[in-house]
């Protein structure tokens, strides 16, 4: 797909994210907006998921380990036509399929229920192991937060992935350097992330997580890497696309008010 088309989808996904969180008056805009380009690239280029195989496990799979970015996932589903755009407004409402954190039992296409940080990546390891047993060539992708990397479980998962030479697993770290209480390096440094991942026997690629050429090239390199899992460290801007939300820890889990909502949509429409 041409970059310009991907950009259009990403922009539409960003508008949906802001809309979801606004109508819910709750949720996580920052980490959703920042991940929008990666998620667009996954669903519109990389993953072999389509209308026909959405309900099947016989395809690539994506685990949103940073489950609080659910608005980005649901927005991508709407952009793919798997749910109605109107349904996005039910996000976080009683009875909705669009739970605060994704539930695989409620919404077709959600490959794992997540929300508790650190667990999704391990689930992705399990899926990659299953695919090895089944000798298929489906690929497993997972997106983790950089704050999430503070969980010991993330490192247990990486250790297991490398030990089992899971070259069918691609771990993307959304490296926006922010978590709830502040900057990752101030709260509890995870750095140097690249060297740590390499020491754990992973193939490491560093990219700009908003550059579609770089995202595409990284996925290709991951596919061609044999005998070890790939970790893509994607430098991102939390809140990307809505200027007043960009790089602000304060916009991690706060909904915009009416005025801010309109300002955000206006800014995204001008793109």
């Amino acid at each position, binding site marked *: 797909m041409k970059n310009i088309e991907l950009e259009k989808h990403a922009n539409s996904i960003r508008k949906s994210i802001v809309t979801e969180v606004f109508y*819910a008056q*709750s*949720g996580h805009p920052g980490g959703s907006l920042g991940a929008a380009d990666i998620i667009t690239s996954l669903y519109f280029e990389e993953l072999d998921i389509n209308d026909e195989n959405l309900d099947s496990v016989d395809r690539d799979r994506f685990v949103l380990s940073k*489950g609080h970015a659910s608005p980005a996932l649901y927005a991508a589903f709407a952009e793919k036509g798997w749910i109605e755009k109107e349904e996005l407004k039910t996000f*976080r*409402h*009683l*009875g*909705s399929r*669009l*739970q*605060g*954190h994704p*539930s695989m039992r409620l919404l077709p296409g959600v490959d794992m*229920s*997540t*929300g*508790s*940080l*650190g667990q999704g990546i391990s689930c992705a390891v399990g899926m990659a192991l299953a695919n090895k047993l089944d000798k298929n060539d489906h690929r497993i992708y997972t997106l983790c937060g950089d*704050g*999430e990397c*503070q*969980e*010991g479980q993330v490192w247990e998962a990486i250790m297991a992935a490398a030990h089992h030479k899971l070259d069918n697993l691609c771990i993307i770290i959304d490296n926006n350097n922010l*978590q*709830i*209480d502040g900057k990752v390096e101030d*709260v*509890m440094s995870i750095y140097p992330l690249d060297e740590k991942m390499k020491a754990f026997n992973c193939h490491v690629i560093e990219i700009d997580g908003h550059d579609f050429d770089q995202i595409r090239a990284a996925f290709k390199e991951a596919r061609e890497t044999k005998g070890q899992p790939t970790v893509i460290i994607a430098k991102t801007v939390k809140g990307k696309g809505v200027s007043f939300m960009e790089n602000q820890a304060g916009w991690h889990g706060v909904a915009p008010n009416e005025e801010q909502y309109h300002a955000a949509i206006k800014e995204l429409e001008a793109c």
Partner: protein
Amino acid sequence: MASIATRIAYGDALKELLQEDENIVVLDADLAGSTKSAEAKKVDPARHFDMGIAEGNMMSVAAGLAASGKIAFASTFAMFATGRGFEQIRNSIGYPHLNVKVCASHAGISVGEDGASHQCIEDINLMRGIPGMTVVVPCDYNEAKQAVRAIAYHEGPCYVRLGRSGVEEVTPEGYQFELGKGVVLKEGTKVALVATGSMVQESLKACELLDFEPTVVNIHTIKPIDRELIVELANSHDLIVTCEEHSIIGGLGSAVAEVMAEAGCPCKLARVGVQDVFGESGKPKELFETYGLDPQSIANVVKNNL
């Protein structure tokens, strides 16, 4: 009526405690603003440790601090404190009986929109099962503040369950919190509503929907439970209805059932709580109605069991 979340009381109590006692330290796991442990930073940032999103590690680090003579308060959401950190709490804190005070916020389904992954309805059960652990579930700001101060100097590991959402003040003026002692808020007949935490408010409101005056009791300390009071209630009422924002399995209802069964009480028991199901996203009030925790549901349980 004022509506304040019990976690606010936690922050305020911590501030006082840090000022009064240099032996007190605080740990959090990237939720210091939400749990209100960040209030401690205002007094002495050197005694507040943000351990990052690593709850298991935080619990054992707290144990190490306590094993070195400190009184360590460890906070995060109830789900991640008692869920992710369970085995560390059990083996690093419970087994050596250390002075770690796990004060967890956002417990129960009143977490609301975050949904089932964040709505901890198993924490009382988990913490109650650890030998030597004291378990306290305060119902309002006043009680929570006093409870936090009380457990600070109660020897050994303690768990305090705090809420995200605002709750009305229901403790009477001049109220004195006493660890392990249930509080009779209303003396009535036939039925005793035995509630804990946010369900104390719901139980009081349920009384208005009944055509008689039931007894209402606040059991803020789940462990050690006030056996004497429960046996007394069971012997003087036809029905006890336990009310908790927790699974009906392993929480207050179970604790009361154990006491009643062992004492051979003839009184009937009904349990209001989350009926062995996961919650979902929604507003706290809607969720209380959907999951049978609102005053009308309590009143219905009373009517159906009398």
